[in-house]
């Protein structure tokens, strides 16, 4: 039995369909990431799971029980908002104790739990401060401690790292993952950052226009994108997509290599006219096009270990392993079975 299940969920705001028929099943202890561009409905979906929005249609089940019509307080769900939403008039200790108070947990038991939660995130020394006296990273820890203190069944996170600077974000991501693994709590994590999604998710649900376009492990969505949107949304730089007659041909920039670099196997050769080369230390980016397909920009990403001399404004001979070629339908962009290809 899935711990969290969403069936045919739909949400309309007036004429706008924010979430359009979403199905999700999440197992105990899973870290599920909702990934998509802004306005794709991922936050609305999260808010419906939390009970802050009422779905227009569909059902939400927690541990097999239908909770669609239950208010947020009855769902035993914890949520961390993007802004952290700390109560500014309360000390850190009172912030963390707040959900316990709602449950009627009192006295020494409450103090003990607050200490335990604060200990998990190393913020015991901040208990007497107020939110405004904390740094961004500290606030995030307080928000997490407050979320975890009553040991919820599901943990919802709405872009909790987006307010941190880049360096702090990497550290916070590491902390968060370590903590999730330790506690083993089912989590739903919303982000628009594909690096976060790839690095953290057990599974990723890629969303667009209120629909889930693909749901799978990071490997699946990266190597076997369900459609051209997923292919281009995930990966940096994104998958190269070329109009190839009856279908769309796709391959990742790191699989597009100069002839002779990788031998053996079944490889499909291409001519590649290189416009510009970017040297980035650990790799080289080559920007250009494939003759006959001048309208589409193609990028090749060569690791620093590939030292073949290449020149700008020259045509070179490249190739892709045939099992790394992806094929998509021309209308709709859906994945189709491998085709034979004439390069």
């Amino acid at each position, binding site marked *: 039995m899935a711990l969290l299940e969403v069936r045919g969920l739909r949400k309309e705001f007036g004429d706008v369909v924010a979430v359009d028929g979403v199905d999700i099943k999440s197992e105990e202890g899973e870290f599920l990431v909702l990934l998509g561009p802004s306005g794709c409905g991922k936050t609305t979906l999260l808010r419906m799971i*939390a009970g*802050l929005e009422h779905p227009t249609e569909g059902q939400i089940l927690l541990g097999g029980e239908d909770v669609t019509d239950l*208010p*947020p*307080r009855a769902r035993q769900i914890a*949520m961390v908002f*993007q802004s952290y*939403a700390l109560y500014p008039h309360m000390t850190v200790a009172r912030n963390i104790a707040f959900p316990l108070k709602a449950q009627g947990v009192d006295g020494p038991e409450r103090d003990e739990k607050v200490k335990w939660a604060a200990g998990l995130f190393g913020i015991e020394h901040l208990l007497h401060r107020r939110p*405004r006296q904390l740094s961004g990273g500290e606030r995030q820890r307080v928000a997490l401690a407050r979320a975890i203190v009553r040991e919820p069944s599901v943990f919802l996170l709405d872009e909790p790292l987006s307010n941190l600077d880049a360096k702090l974000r990497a550290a916070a991501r590491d902390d968060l993952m370590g903590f999730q693994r330790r506690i083993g709590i089912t989590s739903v994590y919303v982000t628009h950052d594909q690096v976060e999604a790839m690095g953290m998710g057990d599974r990723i649900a890629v969303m667009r226009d209120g629909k889930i376009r693909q749901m799978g492990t990071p490997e699946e969505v990266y190597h076997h994108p369900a459609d051209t949107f997923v292919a281009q949304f995930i990966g940096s730089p994104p998958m190269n997509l070329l109009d190839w007659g009856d279908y769309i041909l796709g391959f990742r920039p790191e699989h597009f290599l100069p002839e002779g670099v990788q031998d053996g196997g079944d490889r499909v050769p291409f001519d590649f006219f290189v416009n510009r080369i970017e040297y980035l230390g650990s790799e080289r980016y080559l920007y250009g096009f494939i003759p006959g397909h001048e309208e589409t920009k193609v990028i090749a990403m060569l690791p620093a270990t590939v030292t073949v001399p290449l020149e700008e404004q020259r045509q070179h001979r490249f190739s892709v392993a045939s099992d790394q070629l992806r094929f998509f339908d021309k209308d709709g962009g859906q994945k189709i079975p491998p085709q034979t290809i004439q390069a």
Partner: protein
Amino acid sequence: MTWDSTNVARLREKTRRRHRLGRVGLYLSAIGFSLFAVFPFSWAVISMFKRSNDLYSRDNNPFWFNEPPTLQHIQYLFRETNYLTFVRNTLIVGLVVTAVTLAFSLPTAYALARLRLKWGERMGIAIFLVYLIPPTLLFIPMTRVINFLGIQETLWSLILVYPTITIPISSWLLMGYFKSIPMDIEEQAMVDGYSRLGAITRVVMPLMFPGIVAVIVFAFTLSAHEFIYALSFNKASAVKTIATGVPTELIRGDVFFWQSLQSAVVLVAIPIALVFNAFLDRFIAGFTMGAVKG
């Protein structure tokens, strides 16, 4: 200009002089404004203790005692007029109106600020427009209403009419305060296990404190100083407020009981000033409490 030492010294001297001039200007204007603010109040305080001969003689210094001070006009105020009744009436009307105003404007403002109503914004503006109709125009129809209800010559007339002014303005004022409190905080409290009402009372209200104080100050001062309605609804001495009782009973024909008038004003102003002052600290504390981020 080059950076040689004489130039630097000259610049330093210039900056210092400018800084000193700035300080002098600041203190001079601060003292000027203080005198301006204190002047009417201090004149009233001096006048209330003056003997009539002293007050009315043109040769005397009007800003100081030329004859020994006296308490006889304050005694007159308490013994010969219903001053204490006026004070009591003003307090009753002020407190009840304030309570009614908060009871109505808090939920109104919350609904207009938070719930996704399409016409919320427009309604907010419409509410504000009500304030633009002057009481000098409204008191005529209002008198008919009060007579129809049969509550003329009672405090209920004022308790009914003042909220028609205070509720719209307070709703409008509180709407801004509600909007300044992030929705996230309220929703967080709801996820943390409270009902919407629980979230409002435990999280939103404490953060609303400055706004609530502003409404209390506004509703109470309006009830205390309003004149036109109070004058037209209530003519009996027992149901007058300070605003109407003091001028109608201490000005008889062309005889002004100046010292008693001044006493009546100063005696209510002092406690109110002290109470507001006490609130002022909390008011500022509320503003500097710190928001969600940064």
